[in-house]
């Protein structure tokens, strides 16, 4: 297992007072709380922080941890000393409870439920009549906009800590095949019952919450269930109000432009966004594109210049 430098995690010197530990925890908890934080790896950082705090806030656990010595480095290969926990008078039996299943194998081995620190006072052992539901997990899944539109199946890779029969924690990778319903939106969660951590002592397994993240699409911009795309049109299509083919997530559809359509004008194709109740709309923003230069095009523009009285800058300018 890897050594965890809890002081480093909390950004504190080994000489920090209990008050300093408390203050550092509160400050970092606000920074890395997964429900608040903007950091990419907030979930991981917050777990590390909770684990470090769990040990350092408790003077007994801290003293035992300090006895390992100051020479260990974060991530260094580590085996607990054979006499671990000897000579400590354990008074507090507060166990980290719900979150502890998420902590590292380093924590589990030294401070977990099977360690000297995890055994309740009076000799009663966890495992006899002790049952707890498994942890819920949250995992992010990145999908393409097309998948959100059509729905489909995705493989989700998870790294889940598991408690072995002898009380050790191992991280097991597993792959789930998950059906993504059509019409999921950015940030939406999907609940998969009983796919979280297994329970302890016959407790029910936790649940898995998948958080959907939709990759940016080259052509469509997504807002809620509405999509917006820019549509290039020829000047005469805009001027005459032609019917044009518009790409949508469900395939091209025909749209009649209003005669005299302007560049930047936003038109709506109702119900052509992501499916849902109600479904989203597709917005089309017009971009007027000139035909490539050619003698004939030039000739026609020159004819317009002579015959169409038009000053696009009339009324603008100083």
């Amino acid at each position, binding site marked *: 297992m890897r050594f965890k430098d809890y002081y480093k995690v909390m950004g504190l010197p080994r000489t920090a007072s209990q008050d300093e530990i408390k203050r550092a925890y*509160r400050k970092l908890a606000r920074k890395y709380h997964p429900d608040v934080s903007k950091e990419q790896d907030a979930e991981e950082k*917050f777990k590390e922080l909770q684990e470090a705090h769990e040990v350092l806030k408790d003077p007994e656990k801290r003293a035992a941890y300090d006895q390992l010595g100051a020479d260990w480095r974060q991530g260094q290969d580590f085996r607990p000393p054979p006499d671990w926990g000897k000579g400590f008078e354990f008074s507090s039996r507060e166990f980290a409870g719900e979150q502890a299943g998420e902590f590292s194998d380093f924590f589990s081995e030294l401070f977990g439920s099977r360690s000297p620190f995890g055994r309740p006072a009076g000799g009663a052992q966890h495992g006899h009549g002790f049952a707890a539901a498994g942890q819920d997990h949250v995992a992010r899944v990145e999908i393409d906009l097309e998948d959100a539109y059509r729905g489909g199946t995705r493989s989700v890779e998870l790294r889940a800590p598991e408690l072995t029969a002898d009380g050790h924690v191992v991280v097991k990778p597993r792959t789930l*095949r*998950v059906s993504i319903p059509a019409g999921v939106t950015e940030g*939406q969660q999907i*609940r998969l019952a009983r*796919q979280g951590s297994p329970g302890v002592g016959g407790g029910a397994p936790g649940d898995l919450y*998948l958080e959907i993240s939709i990759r940016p699409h080259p052509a469509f*911009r997504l807002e809620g269930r509405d999509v917006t795309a820019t549509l290039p049109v020829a000047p005469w299509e805009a001027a005459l109000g032609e019917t044009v083919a518009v790409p949508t997530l469900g395939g091209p559809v025909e749209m009649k432009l209003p005669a005299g359509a302007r560049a930047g004008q936003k038109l709506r194709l109702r119900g052509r966004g992501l499916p849902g109740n109600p479904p989203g709309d597709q917005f089309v923003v017009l971009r007027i594109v000139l035909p490539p230069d050619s003698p004939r095009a030039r000739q026609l523009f020159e004819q317009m210049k002579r015959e169409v009285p038009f000053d696009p800058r009339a009324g603008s300018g100083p």
Partner: protein
Amino acid sequence: MTSLDSILEGMPLDESAWIAVGDLCAWLRVERRWVVSLVDAGVLEPRGAGPEAWRFPASDVVRARAVARLLRDLEVNLEGAALILDLVEERRRLERRIALLERLLEE
């Protein structure tokens, strides 16, 4: 454990599905009076006459879970957690909007 071949169907937690108060309590492993306190604080907005008949939009599961974690981890009270939740949701909305506008500016 789940084999590779089976495809799991989850429940999308959006406004299109509604869940009973009993399910909400079971999913979050909380007591009903905790849910009542969240409704009183305006965090959750159920339909139905009285706590026994309450039904919640499935998206409330996400909100309630977030509040539970904030209460547990940050030592804030319910009003504080509700305020954090509102502000974080507003910030996410604004971030998405900014990202959208930045893309528009680049085009």
